[in-house]
């Protein structure tokens, strides 16, 4: 029962905050609601017994991405300009609604092979074994640092002041 209530609280918080991000005029309020949305998604992860990913969600999304977005808003001084919709507002709404109804129709009409087994209690050690163990995910794990290095170099080169 408690899990059901928690799911609905987190689901309503997630959807409401996401709607606020796309509908509010003030960009800074959108950014704060984006952080709220990420926090509610971390709660959803905990309900799905993914404790390590909930911690990573808070560290990476709220700690890094949220701060970065707010910093970019501060640097570009577009808060007063707001975020109006462009001329594709109605077509975009129709596309999003069609996509949403199509996916929900597919979800409801598919017979999922639900397993009744209990989930792993603490996922951190299980994830470590899964990634670093035999037949694990070592190659993707090695690619991620390369991607991050390229990101750091790219961000520095892009933001560097060329006039000096």
């Amino acid at each position, binding site marked *: 029962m408690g899990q*059901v209530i928690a*799911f609905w609280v987190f*689901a309503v918080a997630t*959807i409401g905050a*996401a709607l606020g*991000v*796309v509908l509010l005029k003030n960009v800074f309020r959108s*950014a704060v609601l*984006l952080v709220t*949305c*990420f926090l509610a998604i971390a709660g*959803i*992860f905990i309900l*799905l017994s*993914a404790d390590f*990913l909930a911690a990573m*969600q808070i560290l*990476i*999304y709220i700690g*890094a*991405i949220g701060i*970065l*977005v707010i*910093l*970019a*808003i501060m640097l*570009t001084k*577009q808060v007063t300009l707001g*975020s109006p*919709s*462009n001329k594709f*507002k109605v077509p*975009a*709404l129709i*596309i*999003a*609604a069609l*996509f*949403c109804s199509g*996916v929900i129709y597919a*979800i*409801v009409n598919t017979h*999922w*092979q*639900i397993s009744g*087994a*209990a989930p*792993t209690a603490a*996922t951190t050690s299980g*994830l470590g074994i*899964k*990634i670093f163990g035999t037949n694990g*995910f070592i190659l993707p794990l090695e690619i991620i640092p390369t*991607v*991050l290095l390229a*990101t750091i170099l*790219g*961000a520095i080169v*892009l933001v560097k*002041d060329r006039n000096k």
Partner: protein
Amino acid sequence: MTIGLEHYLILSAVLFSIGLYGALAKHNAIVILMSIEIMLSAVNIALIAFSRFIVPTALTGQVFALFAMGVAAAETAVGLAIIISIYRNKETIDANKIDLMKW
């Protein structure tokens, strides 16, 4: 009433559609980037829900979500660097006025 796989998948689909609308219908480049972040988070919810309900002991979906998070962080950093660079050169981040590559 119990919360099953369908509930999480529908939540994920609704969240993805909200992000899709924001990415298609907004002027401000930073708001478009924020909408893309919402879409990526929605996909993570779907991956972890599948991992929890279909193969509860395998954790493969959680590993996928972990890699998706790493790539999302990199994508945000480069995206915001591009937006700040454009703002320096053109004094605007209105996606409709950024038409440098239009022929």
